[in-house]
């Protein structure tokens, strides 16, 4: 190995599978989560929740609760009203009740907030709050939300012809949004040789991070400062919102997101519990903690999906796709609390043309209110990419079935070709880069696709049921260009601030916040490579709004595309200054210097060089005339475009025809996320995403009965695969860098979630299609539901 390679290796920079810096504290139980925060004099709040999905609140009697020793206060909407805080604005332009105002609109809705000495008394106190309800008729099925005689979910919006996202046509209607050339699409369908149409549901699920949501709000009455420790994926935006709601200057509000035990979008939103804790702290002048329990988390915070879609494809009889049309009914629950960029009521759903060169397309989405919990944020939900990928990936299989073509062949036939990038999609996106045929080919060879199909046919002859699922998805991540994306008017940039110390170690702070993704490890690797300093000597900090630069946070796989780019840019600013200092130290012109791993050296005279460490020292005592001392930089990066990671996945499933139990025999996942920063962390992220996708496709569900009661809101019912259920994942990759990202990286964390769900569903549908199944089978593909199909088709016999 050359010394250059050794020096490069010692940096533990980009491409190195360095161990995660955060793990020693996590595996030793030394993490610091919100519930670990204990402040002197701290009180604890507990939310009183509605047992009904829809009911008028006749009265609330706090007396018994207030009489319980240790209870300090009980807040209701009446108490918040004078502060104007009984309702709060949502990121989607709607409003959401903080505490139910005259009526409840979903089961488990927040009705009152009991503040007590500790959790035990708070829970006892909550039990003593007497609420009298008068039940109202409910709207549970979104397909009936806009019936003429449907109950009205939102009395506060009656008579308003819009709910923050354009005009609406019914009291339970939220918005209509469409995209694409409707007429051209209709024409393509009329003249097509083949058309297929299929309804499908992306059912309501929950991301259920291990740590539930919570906060500790601490208002200092003397200084007028508000400090909030919060499980937040976007602490800076939260600070802005707190200021807008409370009137406390932003400089006096400090939001700290400490270690976070998983987010997945569940921790993007601002929940009533947070607001109640903040108000309670202001009113009582003491710190107030609020932590959800598991049932509250599953029942009320940020569900995902509930997208009822109808997909259509028009094609030649040989399988070349001519047009795509999708109609969607979106169930948003009782309040529209989605957290998508302001202009996108259906998020980035228009990525639904997928990896295919589809000349025209049209998508139309209606959002409706129902008497179910609000949310729609987690699991990529507000961005709606999972739904988009699901509909196109299922539809292409439906088309393949109709014309009797193999699902791999029809994909190959319709892929956007490598030379077509940058590619303009029919629904308005410019895909940055990709090589879809190569990815699918690699997967098919790795698994011996032909062999699998042969085996499947042999098994079928023996009455055994095997399915093969494919998914060749295109993701859209890295929100986003501020011309297209903002949250509450703040552009969706992100930031990095890097400071090099005299002895050559560094601290860097970002506007993003890790929830388990390993930012402390990977950001340091980026800086190591850019600046020639060992990543071991680079400290990364995020999540404290008093110290970190303003950023929009971590969700939607935006950290590497946006925060990572800001980090590269800030590092390069430092390197440019370092070059000037090196030139000064070596007494040569800047142009005579070249960057070499960890030093600037004189071109043609490699012995004359100054290492980054030497330069760092000089930055604090010996800089060129007229230059400021110090070595630091900050960058706010506004990406020119999204990035478009992609992948090719294949699943092989075996179905036990007597019980409906599905075994995932193989799952082969090839991901292309552009430049790979830490392959080990990428694999970890992919494993996590695949586990989630497996859980969603095969079992997770938030089911409601006809009265709007949520069934299955504990982990006894809600499917969390353990290591016993989790399939073995086989991973692979290709590297197609993003041309517009400063280091070519694209973001990976959500690809496996988005890509695996349709892959599992395609495998199950494939298993039944070979036996002549005519209709699409909806998720979740749990044993009971699979058995119902077996039973209907008469396949569960010897």
């Amino acid at each position: 190995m050359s010394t250059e390679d050794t020096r490069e290796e010692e940096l533990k920079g980009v491409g190195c599978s360095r161990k995660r810096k955060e793990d020693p504290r996590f595996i030793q139980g030394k993490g610091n989560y919100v519930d670990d925060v204990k402040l002197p004099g701290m009180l604890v709040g507990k939310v009183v929740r509605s047992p009904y999905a829809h009911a008028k609140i006749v009265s609330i009697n706090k007396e018994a609760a207030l009489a319980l020793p240790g209870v300090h206060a009980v807040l209701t909407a009446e108490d918040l009203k004078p502060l104007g805080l009984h309702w709060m604005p949502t990121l989607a332009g709607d409003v959401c009740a903080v505490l139910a105002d005259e009526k409840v609109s979903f089961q488990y809705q927040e009705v009152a907030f009991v503040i007590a000495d500790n959790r035990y008394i708070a829970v006892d106190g909550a039990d003593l709050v007497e609420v009298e309800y008068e039940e109202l008729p409910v709207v549970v099925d979104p397909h009936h939300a806009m019936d003429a005689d449907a109950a009205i979910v939102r009395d506060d919006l009656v008579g308003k012809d819009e709910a923050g996202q354009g005009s609406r046509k019914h009291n339970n209607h939220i918005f209509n949004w469409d995209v694409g050339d409707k007429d051209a699409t209709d024409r393509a369908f009329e003249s097509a040789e083949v058309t297929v149409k299929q309804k499908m549901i992306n059912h309501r699920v929950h991301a259920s991070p291990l740590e539930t949501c919570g906060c500790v709000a601490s208002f200092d009455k003397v200084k007028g400062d508000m400090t909030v420790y919060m499980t937040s994926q976007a602490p800076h935006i939260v600070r802005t919102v707190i200021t807008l709601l409370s009137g406390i200057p932003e400089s006096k509000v400090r939001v700290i997101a400490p270690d976070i035990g998983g987010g997945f979008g569940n921790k993007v939103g601002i929940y009533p519990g947070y607001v109640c804790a903040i108000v309670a702290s202001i009113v009582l002048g003491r710190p107030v903690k609020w932590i959800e329990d598991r049932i509250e988390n599953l029942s009320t915070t940020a569900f995902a999906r509930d997208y009822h879609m109808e997909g259509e494809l028009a094609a030649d009889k040989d399988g070349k796709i001519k047009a795509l049309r999708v109609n969607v009914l979106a169930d948003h629950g009782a309040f529209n609390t989605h957290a998508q960029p302001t202009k996108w009521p259906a998020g980035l759903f228009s990525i639904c043309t997928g990896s295919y060169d589809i000349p025209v397309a049209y998508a139309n989405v209606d959002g409706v209110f129902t008497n179910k919990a609000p949310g729609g944020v987690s699991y990529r939900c507000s961005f709606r990419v999972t739904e988009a990928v699901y509909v196109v990936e299922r539809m292409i299989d439906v088309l393949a079935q109709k014309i009797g073509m193999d699902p791999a062949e029809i994909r190959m036939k319709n892929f956007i070709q490598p030379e077509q990038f940058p590619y303009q999609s029919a629904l308005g996106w410019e895909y940055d880069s990709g090589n879809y045929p190569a990815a699918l080919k690699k997967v098919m060879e790795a698994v011996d696709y032909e062999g699998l199909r042969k085996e499947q046919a042999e098994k079928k002859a023996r009455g055994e049921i095997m399915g093969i699922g494919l998914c060749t998805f295109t993701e859209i991540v890295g929100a986003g260009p501020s011309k297209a994306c903002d949250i509450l008017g703040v552009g969706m940039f992100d930031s990095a601030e890097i400071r090099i110390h005299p002895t050559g170690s560094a601290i860097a702070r970002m506007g993003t916040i890790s929830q388990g993704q390993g930012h402390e490890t990977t950001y340091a690797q980026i800086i190591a490579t850019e600046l020639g300093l060992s990543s071991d000597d680079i400290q990364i900090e995020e999540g404290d709004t008093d110290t970190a630069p303003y950023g929009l946070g971590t969700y939607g796989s935006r950290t590497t595309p946006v925060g990572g780019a800001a980090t590269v840019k800030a590092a390069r600013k430092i390197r440019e200054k370092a070059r000037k200092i090196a030139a000064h130290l070596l007494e040569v012109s800047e142009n005579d210097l070249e960057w070499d791993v960890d030093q600037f050296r004189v071109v043609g005279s490699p012995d004359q060089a100054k290492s980054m460490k030497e330069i760092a020292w000089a930055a604090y005592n010996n800089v060129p005339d007229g230059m400021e001392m110090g070595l630091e930089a900050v960058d706010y990066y506004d990406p020119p475009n999204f990035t478009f990671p992609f992948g090719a996945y294949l699943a092989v499933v075996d179905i036990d025809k007597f019980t409906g139990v599905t075994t995932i025999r193989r799952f082969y996942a090839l991901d292309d996320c552009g430049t790979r920063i830490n392959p080990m962390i990428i694999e970890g992220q992919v494993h996590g995403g695949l586990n989630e996708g497996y859980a969603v496709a095969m079992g997770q569900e938030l089911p409601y009965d006809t009265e709007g009661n949520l069934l299955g809101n504990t982990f006894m019912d809600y499917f969390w695969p353990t290591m016993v259920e989790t399939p073995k994942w086989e991973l692979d990759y290709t590297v197609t860098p993003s041309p517009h990202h400063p280091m070519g990286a694209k973001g990976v964390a959500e690809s496996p979630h988005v890509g695996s769900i349709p892959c599992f569903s395609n495998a199950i549908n494939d298993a039944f299609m070979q036996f002549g199944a005519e209709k699409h089978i909806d998720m979740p593909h749990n044993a009971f539901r699979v058995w119902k199909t077996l039973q209907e088709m008469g396949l569960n016999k010897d």
Partner: protein
Amino acid sequence: MIPGNFEYHAPTSLADALALLGQYGDEAKIIAGGHSLLPMMKLRFAEPEHLIDINGISELRGIREEGGMIKIGAMTTENQLIASEILWDKCPLIPTAAKLIADPQVRNRGTIGGDIAHGDPGNDHPAIMLALGASFVLAGPDGERTVPADGFFLGTYYTQLEEGEIMTEIQVPVPPAGSGYGFSKLKRKTGDFATAAAAVQLQLNGDSCTQINIALTNVGPCSFKASDAAAHLTGKVIDDALISEAAEKAMADCDPSEDLRGNIEYKTSMAGEMVRRAIRSALSNAKGE
């Protein structure tokens, strides 16, 4: 997820435990492993004012063989059952099934006595005990009585255990040579209760089945023996057709309730399938296959 207030007692002898139970009557609950009781208390479905913890009574733990009987202390944990050489040697149905109960944390604390006494149709030991023809020793204010498993389970959370009584021991007749056992359980995931499960204990004489017990978990208000199915097989050389007929008979005895695990039709059908599988494995291990 916080239980109501209660007072905690930790007696170290059976006599003290019985005295406390007598003193507090229906305001008191015995706590063994706590893995059925505590979840109910956290949801405030159960709000006992006194908890009598019997973990400190060492005489209630342990497994021994005595006079053709295996005697298992009521406070023996699932993991102790799984680790027991006597059981693997003499009565493998118990540890085989115990391995499929809940998850490692629950098995570490949960006890066989608690599993039986709780009377939950989703618990597996009741069916195992019915299949093995076990009996239970119940200690009360007036001394001990021994009741057979058959007839002990009366309904959901309802058994022959009377107020003031503590189950102290489980007695299982050692299955004779030529016995076979089978336990089949369908569950959605680790840590879930059964969608349906079947426990089978049988004896062969040559190829002929001289005796068989078939018992089911979670497909009725309590665990029960599928007696018609067993009768259909007794005295016969069991083949696939007979197994299917027996499964049909077992299904006719099922009365499951619908929940997220499945509807009545599915659960009944799965009960049949579990019976089929359990009989098949009992036959094959009886034949030493």
